[in-house]
Protein backbone atom coordinates (compact mmCIF):
# COMPACT_ATOMS: atom_id res chain seq x y z
CA UNK A 1 0.00 0.00 0.00
CA UNK A 2 1.49 3.32 -0.99
CA UNK A 3 -0.73 5.70 0.96
CA UNK A 4 -0.17 6.54 4.58
CA UNK A 5 -2.91 5.11 6.79
CA UNK A 6 -4.85 7.81 8.58
CA UNK A 7 -6.08 6.78 11.98
CA UNK A 8 -8.31 8.85 14.24
CA UNK A 9 -8.51 8.25 17.97
CA UNK A 10 -11.28 9.44 20.25
CA UNK A 11 -10.02 8.59 23.70
CA UNK A 12 -10.66 9.52 27.29
CA UNK A 13 -7.35 11.23 27.94
CA UNK A 14 -3.86 12.02 26.70
CA UNK A 15 -2.19 9.07 28.46
CA UNK A 16 -4.70 6.72 26.83
CA UNK A 17 -3.78 8.13 23.43
CA UNK A 18 -0.09 7.45 24.06
CA UNK A 19 -0.87 3.83 24.91
CA UNK A 20 -3.19 3.35 21.93
CA UNK A 21 -0.55 4.74 19.56
CA UNK A 22 1.92 2.21 20.92
CA UNK A 23 -0.59 -0.60 20.39
CA UNK A 24 -1.29 0.56 16.84
CA UNK A 25 2.47 0.62 16.19
CA UNK A 26 2.59 -3.01 17.26
CA UNK A 27 -0.45 -4.12 15.27
CA UNK A 28 0.47 -2.38 12.05
CA UNK A 29 3.54 -4.16 10.82
CA UNK A 30 6.63 -2.14 10.09
CA UNK A 31 6.00 -1.99 6.37
CA UNK A 32 3.07 0.38 6.79
CA UNK A 33 3.17 3.98 7.86
CA UNK A 34 0.38 5.79 9.55
CA UNK A 35 -0.59 9.06 11.14
CA UNK A 36 -2.59 9.09 14.36
CA UNK A 37 -4.69 12.10 15.19
CA UNK A 38 -6.57 12.52 18.42
CA UNK A 39 -10.05 13.93 17.96
CA UNK A 40 -11.31 16.04 20.83
CA UNK A 41 -14.43 18.07 21.53
CA UNK A 42 -14.26 21.84 21.41
CA UNK A 43 -13.94 23.27 24.88
CA UNK A 44 -12.75 26.37 26.69
CA UNK A 45 -10.68 26.32 29.83
CA UNK A 46 -13.18 28.54 31.61
CA UNK A 47 -15.89 25.91 31.25
CA UNK A 48 -13.48 23.10 32.06
CA UNK A 49 -12.93 24.78 35.41
CA UNK A 50 -16.64 24.99 35.98
CA UNK A 51 -17.22 21.39 35.03
CA UNK A 52 -14.25 19.18 35.63
CA UNK A 53 -13.57 16.61 32.95
CA UNK A 54 -15.63 18.48 30.41
CA UNK A 55 -12.87 18.34 27.82
CA UNK A 56 -11.38 14.98 28.66
CA UNK A 57 -12.44 11.79 30.37
CA UNK A 58 -15.35 9.66 29.28
CA UNK A 59 -17.67 12.67 29.15
CA UNK A 60 -15.24 14.26 26.68
CA UNK A 61 -15.62 11.21 24.44
CA UNK A 62 -19.39 11.47 24.77
CA UNK A 63 -19.43 15.19 23.97
CA UNK A 64 -17.12 14.68 21.02
CA UNK A 65 -19.30 11.95 19.53
CA UNK A 66 -22.51 13.90 20.09
CA UNK A 67 -20.97 17.02 18.57
CA UNK A 68 -19.87 15.07 15.52
CA UNK A 69 -23.28 13.44 15.25
CA UNK A 70 -24.80 16.90 15.22
CA UNK A 71 -22.26 18.15 12.66
CA UNK A 72 -23.18 15.26 10.35
CA UNK A 73 -26.90 15.73 10.78
CA UNK A 74 -27.29 12.56 12.82
CA UNK A 75 -25.27 10.42 10.42
CA UNK A 76 -22.06 9.93 12.34
CA UNK A 77 -20.73 7.43 9.81
CA UNK A 78 -21.07 10.06 7.08
CA UNK A 79 -19.09 12.72 8.95
CA UNK A 80 -16.35 14.09 6.67
CA UNK A 81 -13.84 13.87 9.47
CA UNK A 82 -14.60 10.15 9.77
CA UNK A 83 -14.82 9.46 6.06
CA UNK A 84 -11.29 10.76 5.49
CA UNK A 85 -9.93 8.24 8.01
CA UNK A 86 -8.86 4.70 7.21
CA UNK A 87 -9.59 3.66 10.74
CA UNK A 88 -11.33 5.17 13.76
CA UNK A 89 -10.67 4.03 17.31
CA UNK A 90 -13.13 4.92 20.06
CA UNK A 91 -11.74 4.29 23.51
CA UNK A 92 -13.78 4.08 26.69
CA UNK A 93 -12.77 2.32 29.86
CA UNK A 94 -15.20 -0.36 30.96
CA UNK A 95 -15.52 1.27 34.39
CA UNK A 96 -17.57 4.01 32.73
CA UNK A 97 -20.47 1.59 33.10
CA UNK A 98 -20.59 2.68 36.75
CA UNK A 99 -20.81 6.39 35.93
CA UNK A 100 -23.89 8.53 35.62
CA UNK A 101 -24.38 11.42 33.21
CA UNK A 102 -24.49 13.71 36.19
CA UNK A 103 -20.96 12.57 37.11
CA UNK A 104 -19.83 13.70 33.67
CA UNK A 105 -21.73 17.01 33.83
CA UNK A 106 -23.89 15.91 30.93
CA UNK A 107 -27.62 16.13 30.58
CA UNK A 108 -29.29 12.77 30.78
CA UNK A 109 -28.83 11.53 27.23
CA UNK A 110 -30.45 8.21 27.84
CA UNK A 111 -31.25 6.08 30.82
CA UNK A 112 -28.35 3.81 29.99
CA UNK A 113 -25.78 5.02 32.55
CA UNK A 114 -24.90 3.66 34.97
CA UNK A 115 -25.31 0.29 33.29
CA UNK A 116 -26.99 -2.49 35.26
CA UNK A 117 -24.33 -3.91 37.53
CA UNK A 118 -22.68 -7.06 36.23
CA UNK A 119 -21.43 -8.96 39.24
CA UNK A 120 -19.08 -11.89 39.42
CA UNK A 121 -21.20 -15.01 40.09
CA UNK A 122 -18.44 -16.68 42.11
CA UNK A 123 -18.67 -16.58 45.88
CA UNK A 124 -16.05 -14.30 47.39
CA UNK A 125 -13.91 -17.11 48.72
CA UNK A 126 -13.56 -18.66 45.26
CA UNK A 127 -12.49 -15.49 43.52
CA UNK A 128 -8.79 -16.16 44.08
CA UNK A 129 -8.67 -18.09 40.85
CA UNK A 130 -10.92 -16.77 38.18
CA UNK A 131 -11.71 -19.32 35.42
CA UNK A 132 -9.99 -18.52 32.15
CA UNK A 133 -13.29 -18.54 30.28
CA UNK A 134 -14.86 -15.95 32.59
CA UNK A 135 -16.86 -13.56 30.43
CA UNK A 136 -17.61 -10.86 32.98
CA UNK A 137 -15.11 -8.38 31.42
CA UNK A 138 -16.66 -9.12 28.02
CA UNK A 139 -20.17 -8.48 29.33
CA UNK A 140 -19.09 -5.18 30.87
CA UNK A 141 -17.26 -4.16 27.69
CA UNK A 142 -20.33 -5.03 25.62
CA UNK A 143 -22.43 -2.88 27.92
CA UNK A 144 -20.24 0.19 27.40
CA UNK A 145 -20.10 -0.44 23.67
CA UNK A 146 -23.87 -0.50 23.63
CA UNK A 147 -23.92 2.86 25.40
CA UNK A 148 -21.74 4.33 22.64
CA UNK A 149 -23.93 2.77 19.97
CA UNK A 150 -26.93 4.42 21.61
CA UNK A 151 -25.17 7.79 21.58
CA UNK A 152 -24.64 7.38 17.85
CA UNK A 153 -28.08 5.87 17.12
CA UNK A 154 -26.22 2.76 15.89
CA UNK A 155 -24.94 4.82 12.99
CA UNK A 156 -21.31 3.74 13.13
CA UNK A 157 -18.80 3.55 10.30
CA UNK A 158 -17.40 0.22 9.14
CA UNK A 159 -13.88 1.32 9.95
CA UNK A 160 -14.68 1.74 13.66
CA UNK A 161 -12.75 -0.27 16.23
CA UNK A 162 -13.76 -0.15 19.88
CA UNK A 163 -11.04 -0.06 22.48
CA UNK A 164 -12.64 -1.01 25.78
CA UNK A 165 -10.06 -2.00 28.40
CA UNK A 166 -11.45 -3.68 31.45
CA UNK A 167 -11.71 -2.02 33.79
CA UNK A 168 -9.45 0.74 32.63
CA UNK A 169 -6.43 1.36 30.43
CA UNK A 170 -4.19 1.18 33.49
CA UNK A 171 -4.84 -2.58 33.57
CA UNK A 172 -3.33 -2.86 30.10
CA UNK A 173 -0.33 -0.86 31.21
CA UNK A 174 0.05 -3.05 34.27
CA UNK A 175 -0.23 -6.26 32.25
CA UNK A 176 2.50 -5.11 29.91
CA UNK A 177 5.09 -4.23 32.52
CA UNK A 178 4.23 -6.67 35.30
CA UNK A 179 3.18 -9.92 33.57
CA UNK A 180 4.24 -12.01 36.59
CA UNK A 181 2.06 -10.21 39.09
CA UNK A 182 -0.15 -12.43 41.18
CA UNK A 183 -3.36 -10.83 39.95
CA UNK A 184 -2.44 -11.84 36.45
CA UNK A 185 -1.62 -15.37 37.51
CA UNK A 186 -5.03 -15.51 39.19
CA UNK A 187 -6.61 -14.23 35.96
CA UNK A 188 -8.22 -11.37 37.89
CA UNK A 189 -6.63 -8.29 36.43
CA UNK A 190 -9.58 -7.33 34.24
CA UNK A 191 -11.86 -7.32 37.28
CA UNK A 192 -9.67 -5.07 39.42
CA UNK A 193 -11.44 -1.82 40.13
CA UNK A 194 -9.27 1.31 39.77
CA UNK A 195 -6.24 -0.52 38.37
CA UNK A 196 -4.23 2.72 38.45
CA UNK A 197 -3.73 1.94 42.11
CA UNK A 198 -1.79 -1.18 41.12
CA UNK A 199 0.64 0.95 39.16
CA UNK A 200 0.94 3.42 42.01
CA UNK A 201 1.63 0.67 44.51
CA UNK A 202 4.82 -0.44 42.80
CA UNK A 203 8.23 0.53 44.22
CA UNK A 204 9.37 3.97 43.18
CA UNK A 205 11.74 2.86 40.44
CA UNK A 206 9.05 0.71 38.80
CA UNK A 207 6.14 3.01 39.48
CA UNK A 208 4.30 4.59 36.55
CA UNK A 209 2.47 7.80 37.37
CA UNK A 210 -0.58 8.59 35.27
CA UNK A 211 0.92 11.71 33.75
CA UNK A 212 1.86 12.47 30.19
CA UNK A 213 5.45 13.13 31.28
CA UNK A 214 5.82 9.77 32.99
CA UNK A 215 4.06 7.93 30.17
CA UNK A 216 6.31 9.57 27.59
CA UNK A 217 9.35 8.56 29.62
CA UNK A 218 8.35 5.02 30.52
CA UNK A 219 5.81 3.85 27.98
CA UNK A 220 6.43 5.51 24.63
CA UNK A 221 8.86 3.40 22.64
CA UNK A 222 8.75 0.34 24.89
CA UNK A 223 5.08 -0.51 25.37
CA UNK A 224 4.76 -1.43 21.71
CA UNK A 225 7.03 -4.43 22.23
CA UNK A 226 5.18 -5.62 25.32
CA UNK A 227 1.75 -5.81 23.75
CA UNK A 228 1.86 -9.61 23.54
CA UNK A 229 1.93 -9.71 27.38
CA UNK A 230 -1.29 -7.73 27.41
CA UNK A 231 -2.97 -9.81 24.73
CA UNK A 232 -2.20 -12.98 26.66
CA UNK A 233 -3.58 -11.71 29.92
CA UNK A 234 -6.43 -9.36 29.05
CA UNK A 235 -9.31 -10.70 26.97
CA UNK A 236 -10.38 -7.22 25.84
CA UNK A 237 -6.86 -6.49 24.61
CA UNK A 238 -6.96 -9.61 22.47
CA UNK A 239 -10.41 -8.63 21.25
CA UNK A 240 -9.18 -5.14 20.33
CA UNK A 241 -6.20 -6.61 18.46
CA UNK A 242 -8.39 -8.95 16.45
CA UNK A 243 -11.00 -6.35 15.63
CA UNK A 244 -8.33 -3.83 14.67
CA UNK A 245 -6.61 -6.29 12.35
CA UNK A 246 -9.94 -7.26 10.80
CA UNK A 247 -10.71 -3.65 9.90
CA UNK A 248 -7.11 -3.13 8.79
CA UNK A 249 -7.47 -6.00 6.33
CA UNK A 250 -10.51 -4.39 4.77
CA UNK A 251 -8.59 -1.11 4.45
CA UNK A 252 -5.71 -2.78 2.68
CA UNK A 253 -7.72 -4.62 0.06
Amino acid at each position, binding site marked *: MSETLEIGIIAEGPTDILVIKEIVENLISDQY*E*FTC*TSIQPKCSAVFEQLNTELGTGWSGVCRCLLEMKK*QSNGKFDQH*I*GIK*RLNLLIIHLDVDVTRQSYKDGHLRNIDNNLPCPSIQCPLPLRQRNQCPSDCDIPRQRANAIRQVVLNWLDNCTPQNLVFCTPSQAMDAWVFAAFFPDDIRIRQNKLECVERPERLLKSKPKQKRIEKTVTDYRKKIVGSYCNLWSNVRQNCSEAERFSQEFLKVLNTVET
Partner: protein
Amino acid sequence: MYGIKEIIIESFKSLESVTVELGLLNIFIGANGSGKSNFLEGVGVLSAAVDGRVNDQTLLMRGVRPGTPQLYKSSFKNTDTPSCIAFTAKNTKTQYHVELDNADDPPKPNWLFLQEQLCSIANNKEYQTQEKRNHIKSDRGFAVLRAEESNKKPPLQLIRRLQDYRIYTPTTPVLRSMSTDTQPHRPLGLSGGRLPEAVHELLLYQDSDSYARQITSDFFSLISWADEYSTVSVSKIPIPTFASVSPRILKFQDHFMANERNVVSGYDASEGAMYVLFLAVLVAHPDSPTFCAIENADYGLNPRLVKKLFQQISQWVIDSPVQKQLLITTHNPIVLDGLPIQNDKIRLFVVNRTSKGKTAIKRILPTEEIIDMGKKGHTLSELWVMGLLGGVPDV
Protein backbone atom coordinates in the same frame (compact mmCIF):
# COMPACT_ATOMS: atom_id res chain seq x y z
CA MET B 1 0.90 32.62 -17.48
CA TYR B 2 2.73 29.48 -16.41
CA GLY B 3 2.59 29.24 -12.64
CA ILE B 4 4.17 26.42 -10.68
CA LYS B 5 1.84 23.44 -10.70
CA GLU B 6 3.79 20.89 -8.75
CA ILE B 7 6.73 20.63 -6.40
CA ILE B 8 8.37 17.32 -5.51
CA ILE B 9 10.92 17.13 -2.71
CA GLU B 10 12.87 13.98 -1.96
CA SER B 11 15.22 13.05 0.88
CA PHE B 12 15.30 16.55 2.36
CA LYS B 13 15.03 16.72 6.16
CA SER B 14 11.71 15.13 7.19
CA LEU B 15 10.47 15.12 3.58
CA GLU B 16 11.37 11.68 2.33
CA SER B 17 9.15 12.00 -0.72
CA VAL B 18 6.52 14.69 -0.90
CA THR B 19 4.51 15.92 -3.86
CA VAL B 20 2.42 19.07 -3.58
CA GLU B 21 0.19 20.37 -6.36
CA LEU B 22 0.02 24.10 -5.87
CA GLY B 23 -2.69 26.65 -6.42
CA LEU B 24 -2.13 30.36 -6.10
CA LEU B 25 -2.75 30.77 -2.39
CA ASN B 26 -1.51 27.69 -0.54
CA ILE B 27 -2.06 27.43 3.19
CA PHE B 28 -0.22 24.84 5.23
CA ILE B 29 -1.46 23.80 8.66
CA GLY B 30 0.03 21.24 11.00
CA ALA B 31 1.44 20.62 14.44
CA ASN B 32 4.71 22.24 15.44
CA GLY B 33 7.50 20.09 14.04
CA SER B 34 5.30 18.45 11.41
CA GLY B 35 7.48 19.67 8.55
CA LYS B 36 5.72 22.80 7.24
CA SER B 37 8.86 24.92 7.40
CA ASN B 38 10.93 22.07 5.97
CA PHE B 39 8.72 22.14 2.90
CA LEU B 40 9.10 25.91 2.52
CA GLU B 41 12.86 25.55 2.96
CA GLY B 42 13.02 22.69 0.48
CA VAL B 43 11.50 25.00 -2.11
CA GLY B 44 14.15 27.55 -1.06
CA VAL B 45 16.96 25.08 -1.81
CA LEU B 46 15.33 24.38 -5.17
CA SER B 47 15.23 28.11 -5.82
CA ALA B 48 18.93 28.49 -5.03
CA ALA B 49 19.71 25.55 -7.32
CA VAL B 50 17.77 27.16 -10.16
CA ASP B 51 19.79 30.31 -9.59
CA GLY B 52 22.99 28.32 -10.09
CA ARG B 53 24.57 27.99 -6.64
CA VAL B 54 23.54 26.28 -3.42
CA ASN B 55 25.57 27.53 -0.48
CA ASP B 56 24.99 29.25 2.85
CA GLN B 57 24.77 32.68 1.28
CA THR B 58 22.28 31.80 -1.45
CA LEU B 59 20.17 29.94 1.09
CA LEU B 60 20.19 32.69 3.71
CA MET B 61 19.15 35.30 1.20
CA ARG B 62 16.07 33.18 0.52
CA GLY B 63 15.22 32.81 4.19
CA VAL B 64 16.44 29.21 4.36
CA ARG B 65 18.42 28.11 7.39
CA PRO B 66 21.66 26.69 6.03
CA GLY B 67 22.38 23.19 7.26
CA THR B 68 25.10 20.59 7.07
CA PRO B 69 24.56 17.67 4.69
CA GLN B 70 23.84 15.47 7.72
CA LEU B 71 20.95 17.77 8.62
CA TYR B 72 19.68 18.28 5.10
CA LYS B 73 19.65 14.64 4.00
CA SER B 74 16.76 12.68 5.49
CA SER B 75 18.05 10.45 8.28
CA PHE B 76 15.25 8.23 9.50
CA LYS B 77 15.88 5.41 11.95
CA ASN B 78 16.77 2.07 10.35
CA THR B 79 17.18 3.55 6.87
CA ASP B 80 20.25 4.34 4.83
CA THR B 81 21.24 7.95 4.40
CA PRO B 82 20.28 8.98 0.86
CA SER B 83 23.03 9.78 -1.62
CA CYS B 84 21.52 13.15 -2.52
CA ILE B 85 18.65 15.55 -1.99
CA ALA B 86 16.37 15.96 -4.98
CA PHE B 87 13.86 18.56 -6.09
CA THR B 88 11.45 18.87 -9.00
CA ALA B 89 9.23 21.73 -10.08
CA LYS B 90 6.73 21.70 -12.91
CA ASN B 91 4.46 24.07 -14.70
CA THR B 92 2.02 22.80 -17.32
CA LYS B 93 4.71 22.56 -19.99
CA THR B 94 8.12 22.36 -18.35
CA GLN B 95 9.85 20.37 -15.65
CA TYR B 96 13.00 21.22 -13.74
CA HIS B 97 14.74 18.48 -11.75
CA VAL B 98 17.90 18.74 -9.72
CA GLU B 99 19.86 16.36 -7.50
CA LEU B 100 22.36 17.83 -5.06
CA ASP B 101 25.05 16.34 -2.90
CA ASN B 102 27.70 17.50 -0.50
CA ALA B 103 30.34 15.68 1.50
CA ASP B 104 29.43 15.04 5.14
CA ASP B 105 32.75 15.89 6.68
CA PRO B 106 33.94 18.44 5.90
CA PRO B 107 31.16 19.84 3.72
CA LYS B 108 32.17 22.02 0.81
CA PRO B 109 30.88 25.59 0.58
CA ASN B 110 28.88 24.78 -2.56
CA TRP B 111 26.62 21.77 -3.02
CA LEU B 112 27.40 19.67 -6.09
CA PHE B 113 24.88 19.31 -8.89
CA LEU B 114 24.74 15.55 -9.51
CA GLN B 115 22.00 15.93 -12.07
CA GLU B 116 20.13 18.85 -13.53
CA GLN B 117 17.39 18.67 -16.14
CA LEU B 118 15.17 21.31 -17.66
CA CYS B 119 12.87 19.65 -20.12
CA SER B 120 9.57 19.84 -21.91
CA ILE B 121 6.94 17.64 -20.27
CA ALA B 122 5.27 16.82 -23.59
CA ASN B 123 8.27 15.19 -25.30
CA ASN B 124 10.79 14.96 -22.45
CA LYS B 125 13.19 16.95 -24.63
CA GLU B 126 15.88 18.72 -22.64
CA TYR B 127 16.62 22.39 -23.03
CA GLN B 128 20.40 22.47 -23.43
CA THR B 129 22.86 25.32 -23.38
CA GLN B 130 24.71 25.86 -26.62
CA GLU B 131 27.98 25.09 -24.89
CA LYS B 132 28.41 21.34 -24.96
CA ARG B 133 30.24 21.17 -21.69
CA ASN B 134 29.44 18.52 -19.14
CA HIS B 135 27.43 20.07 -16.35
CA ILE B 136 27.33 16.94 -14.23
CA LYS B 137 29.06 17.10 -10.84
CA SER B 138 29.66 20.79 -11.16
CA ASP B 139 29.05 23.17 -8.27
CA ARG B 140 27.06 25.36 -10.64
CA GLY B 141 23.66 24.90 -12.19
CA PHE B 142 22.73 26.18 -15.61
CA ALA B 143 18.96 26.33 -15.51
CA VAL B 144 18.75 30.07 -16.14
CA LEU B 145 21.08 29.84 -19.12
CA ARG B 146 19.16 26.91 -20.55
CA ALA B 147 15.83 28.69 -20.14
CA GLU B 148 17.14 31.91 -21.67
CA GLU B 149 18.68 30.16 -24.64
CA SER B 150 15.48 28.21 -25.26
CA ASN B 151 13.75 31.56 -25.60
CA LYS B 152 10.44 29.87 -24.81
CA LYS B 153 7.90 31.13 -22.33
CA PRO B 154 7.17 27.95 -20.33
CA PRO B 155 10.78 27.23 -19.25
CA LEU B 156 11.54 30.91 -18.77
CA GLN B 157 8.52 31.49 -16.59
CA LEU B 158 9.17 28.37 -14.51
CA ILE B 159 12.77 29.37 -13.90
CA ARG B 160 12.04 33.04 -13.23
CA ARG B 161 9.34 32.15 -10.74
CA LEU B 162 11.58 29.72 -8.91
CA GLN B 163 14.42 32.26 -8.87
CA ASP B 164 12.08 34.77 -7.29
CA TYR B 165 11.24 32.56 -4.33
CA ARG B 166 12.05 33.60 -0.79
CA ILE B 167 10.63 32.95 2.66
CA TYR B 168 9.37 35.93 4.64
CA THR B 169 9.05 35.83 8.41
CA PRO B 170 7.77 39.29 9.35
CA THR B 171 8.53 40.56 12.85
CA THR B 172 6.90 43.53 14.53
CA PRO B 173 10.07 45.53 15.42
CA VAL B 174 11.30 45.34 11.82
CA LEU B 175 7.89 46.18 10.37
CA ARG B 176 7.82 49.22 12.64
CA SER B 177 11.32 50.18 11.42
CA MET B 178 12.67 49.89 14.94
CA SER B 179 15.14 47.13 14.02
CA THR B 180 17.16 46.48 10.92
CA ASP B 181 16.41 43.55 8.66
CA THR B 182 19.22 41.00 8.48
CA GLN B 183 18.14 40.05 4.96
CA PRO B 184 17.30 43.29 3.20
CA HIS B 185 15.69 42.95 -0.21
CA ARG B 186 13.65 45.11 -2.51
CA PRO B 187 10.81 45.74 -2.11
CA LEU B 188 10.73 44.03 1.32
CA GLY B 189 13.32 42.44 3.56
CA LEU B 190 12.65 38.93 4.76
CA SER B 191 11.61 40.18 8.20
CA GLY B 192 9.55 43.02 6.76
CA GLY B 193 12.30 45.62 6.48
CA ARG B 194 11.77 48.56 4.10
CA LEU B 195 8.01 48.46 4.72
CA PRO B 196 7.62 52.29 4.71
CA GLU B 197 9.62 52.62 1.48
CA ALA B 198 7.71 49.76 -0.14
CA VAL B 199 4.36 51.27 0.87
CA HIS B 200 5.52 54.61 -0.54
CA GLU B 201 6.41 52.92 -3.84
CA LEU B 202 3.11 51.07 -3.90
CA LEU B 203 1.14 54.27 -3.32
CA LEU B 204 2.95 55.89 -6.23
CA TYR B 205 2.45 52.82 -8.40
CA GLN B 206 -1.29 52.69 -7.76
CA ASP B 207 -1.76 55.85 -9.81
CA SER B 208 -1.04 53.79 -12.92
CA ASP B 209 -2.33 50.39 -11.85
CA SER B 210 -5.95 49.62 -10.99
CA TYR B 211 -5.11 46.32 -9.29
CA ALA B 212 -2.69 48.03 -6.89
CA ARG B 213 -5.26 50.77 -6.35
CA GLN B 214 -7.87 48.21 -5.36
CA ILE B 215 -5.53 46.58 -2.87
CA THR B 216 -4.36 49.81 -1.26
CA SER B 217 -7.97 50.84 -0.78
CA ASP B 218 -8.95 47.42 0.61
CA PHE B 219 -6.74 48.30 3.55
CA PHE B 220 -9.53 50.49 4.91
CA SER B 221 -12.00 47.62 4.96
CA LEU B 222 -9.58 45.78 7.23
CA ILE B 223 -8.27 48.52 9.52
CA SER B 224 -11.29 50.50 10.58
CA TRP B 225 -9.57 53.05 12.85
CA ALA B 226 -7.45 54.52 10.03
CA ASP B 227 -8.78 57.21 7.71
CA GLU B 228 -5.61 57.58 5.75
CA TYR B 229 -2.13 56.15 5.49
CA SER B 230 1.04 57.27 3.82
CA THR B 231 4.74 57.55 4.52
CA VAL B 232 6.82 60.56 5.54
CA SER B 233 10.38 61.38 6.40
CA VAL B 234 11.08 60.53 10.05
CA SER B 235 11.95 64.16 10.72
CA LYS B 236 8.36 65.16 9.97
CA ILE B 237 6.66 63.12 12.62
CA PRO B 238 7.10 63.21 16.42
CA ILE B 239 8.76 59.94 17.39
CA PRO B 240 11.67 59.23 19.75
CA THR B 241 14.97 59.65 17.93
CA PHE B 242 16.02 56.05 18.61
CA ALA B 243 12.75 54.67 17.27
CA SER B 244 13.48 54.41 13.57
CA VAL B 245 16.28 52.82 11.61
CA SER B 246 14.69 53.95 8.37
CA PRO B 247 14.64 57.42 6.76
CA ARG B 248 10.89 57.02 6.13
CA ILE B 249 8.16 55.98 8.47
CA LEU B 250 4.55 54.98 8.08
CA LYS B 251 1.95 57.54 9.01
CA PHE B 252 -1.70 56.87 9.78
CA GLN B 253 -4.58 59.21 10.48
CA ASP B 254 -6.63 57.99 13.41
CA HIS B 255 -10.36 58.29 12.77
CA PHE B 256 -11.23 58.89 16.42
CA MET B 257 -8.66 61.47 17.43
CA ALA B 258 -8.95 65.25 17.27
CA ASN B 259 -7.52 67.13 14.31
CA GLU B 260 -3.80 67.85 14.55
CA ARG B 261 -3.47 65.20 17.21
CA ASN B 262 -4.66 62.34 15.06
CA VAL B 263 -1.41 61.34 13.36
CA VAL B 264 0.00 58.00 14.40
CA SER B 265 3.36 56.73 13.19
CA GLY B 266 4.34 53.18 12.33
CA TYR B 267 6.16 53.21 15.64
CA ASP B 268 2.89 53.70 17.55
CA ALA B 269 0.23 52.17 15.33
CA SER B 270 -1.31 48.75 15.98
CA GLU B 271 0.81 45.92 14.68
CA GLY B 272 -2.21 44.55 12.83
CA ALA B 273 -1.98 47.48 10.41
CA MET B 274 1.71 46.67 9.78
CA TYR B 275 0.98 43.05 8.92
CA VAL B 276 -1.88 44.00 6.62
CA LEU B 277 0.31 46.49 4.77
CA PHE B 278 3.14 43.96 4.59
CA LEU B 279 0.85 41.46 2.88
CA ALA B 280 -0.62 44.11 0.60
CA VAL B 281 2.88 45.07 -0.57
CA LEU B 282 3.84 41.46 -1.16
CA VAL B 283 0.80 40.92 -3.32
CA ALA B 284 0.58 44.22 -5.20
CA HIS B 285 4.05 45.79 -5.40
CA PRO B 286 5.33 45.46 -8.96
CA ASP B 287 8.74 44.25 -7.75
CA SER B 288 7.56 41.75 -5.17
CA PRO B 289 8.31 38.10 -5.97
CA THR B 290 5.85 36.14 -8.08
CA PHE B 291 6.42 33.13 -5.84
CA CYS B 292 7.14 33.37 -2.12
CA ALA B 293 6.38 31.93 1.29
CA ILE B 294 5.29 33.66 4.47
CA GLU B 295 5.59 32.27 7.97
CA ASN B 296 3.46 33.73 10.76
CA ALA B 297 1.46 35.94 8.42
CA ASP B 298 -1.35 36.21 10.96
CA TYR B 299 0.75 37.31 13.91
CA GLY B 300 -0.80 40.02 16.08
CA LEU B 301 -4.17 40.03 14.35
CA ASN B 302 -7.59 39.84 15.94
CA PRO B 303 -9.42 36.61 14.93
CA ARG B 304 -12.11 38.46 13.03
CA LEU B 305 -9.49 40.47 11.18
CA VAL B 306 -7.62 37.26 10.40
CA LYS B 307 -10.67 35.78 8.74
CA LYS B 308 -11.40 38.90 6.73
CA LEU B 309 -7.73 39.34 5.79
CA PHE B 310 -7.46 35.83 4.39
CA GLN B 311 -10.72 36.27 2.50
CA GLN B 312 -9.18 39.42 1.12
CA ILE B 313 -5.82 37.81 0.28
CA SER B 314 -7.68 35.00 -1.47
CA GLN B 315 -9.48 37.56 -3.62
CA TRP B 316 -6.23 39.45 -4.23
CA VAL B 317 -4.43 36.38 -5.57
CA ILE B 318 -7.46 35.29 -7.62
CA ASP B 319 -7.49 38.73 -9.25
CA SER B 320 -3.70 38.98 -9.55
CA PRO B 321 -2.75 39.82 -13.15
CA VAL B 322 0.61 38.07 -12.72
CA GLN B 323 -0.85 35.10 -10.82
CA LYS B 324 1.30 35.49 -7.74
CA GLN B 325 1.77 32.29 -5.81
CA LEU B 326 1.98 32.34 -2.03
CA LEU B 327 2.79 29.57 0.41
CA ILE B 328 1.64 30.47 3.92
CA THR B 329 1.98 28.55 7.16
CA THR B 330 -0.34 29.24 10.04
CA HIS B 331 -1.35 27.94 13.44
CA ASN B 332 -4.45 30.09 13.57
CA PRO B 333 -7.65 28.08 12.94
CA ILE B 334 -9.58 31.19 11.94
CA VAL B 335 -7.42 31.49 8.83
CA LEU B 336 -9.26 28.43 7.51
CA ASP B 337 -12.61 30.17 7.83
CA GLY B 338 -11.41 32.88 5.45
CA LEU B 339 -10.41 30.50 2.66
CA PRO B 340 -12.82 29.93 -0.25
CA ILE B 341 -11.28 26.49 -0.97
CA GLN B 342 -14.06 25.73 -3.43
CA ASN B 343 -11.97 27.87 -5.78
CA ASP B 344 -9.20 25.65 -7.14
CA LYS B 345 -6.71 28.51 -6.88
CA ILE B 346 -7.04 28.49 -3.09
CA ARG B 347 -5.66 25.35 -1.52
CA LEU B 348 -5.44 24.09 2.01
CA PHE B 349 -2.87 21.47 2.97
CA VAL B 350 -2.58 19.50 6.19
CA VAL B 351 0.92 18.53 7.24
CA ASN B 352 1.42 15.50 9.49
CA ARG B 353 4.28 13.26 10.45
CA THR B 354 3.80 9.55 9.97
CA SER B 355 4.64 6.82 12.45
CA LYS B 356 8.13 6.74 10.95
CA GLY B 357 8.58 10.48 11.27
CA LYS B 358 8.15 11.29 7.60
CA THR B 359 6.26 14.40 6.63
CA ALA B 360 3.04 13.75 4.74
CA ILE B 361 1.23 16.64 3.06
CA LYS B 362 -2.39 16.20 2.04
CA ARG B 363 -4.77 18.63 0.42
CA ILE B 364 -8.18 19.22 1.99
CA LEU B 365 -10.54 19.15 -0.94
CA PRO B 366 -13.82 21.05 -0.90
CA THR B 367 -15.97 17.92 -0.97
CA GLU B 368 -19.74 18.06 -1.04
CA GLU B 369 -19.76 17.01 2.61
CA ILE B 370 -17.56 19.97 3.58
CA ILE B 371 -19.76 22.39 1.67
CA ASP B 372 -22.81 20.80 3.24
CA MET B 373 -21.38 21.21 6.73
CA GLY B 374 -20.69 24.84 5.97
CA LYS B 375 -24.31 25.33 5.00
CA LYS B 376 -25.31 23.98 8.40
CA GLY B 377 -23.19 26.59 10.14
CA HIS B 378 -20.12 24.50 10.92
CA THR B 379 -16.65 25.82 10.22
CA LEU B 380 -13.33 24.44 9.01
CA SER B 381 -11.67 25.95 12.06
CA GLU B 382 -13.86 23.90 14.37
CA LEU B 383 -13.05 20.72 12.45
CA TRP B 384 -9.34 21.48 12.64
CA VAL B 385 -9.39 22.24 16.36
CA MET B 386 -11.27 18.99 17.03
CA GLY B 387 -8.61 17.09 15.08
CA LEU B 388 -10.97 16.12 12.29
CA LEU B 389 -8.68 17.45 9.57
CA GLY B 390 -5.46 16.09 11.13
CA GLY B 391 -2.56 18.47 11.67
CA VAL B 392 -2.86 18.78 15.45
CA PRO B 393 -0.47 17.80 18.22
CA ASP B 394 -1.27 15.16 20.84
CA VAL B 395 -1.74 17.45 23.78
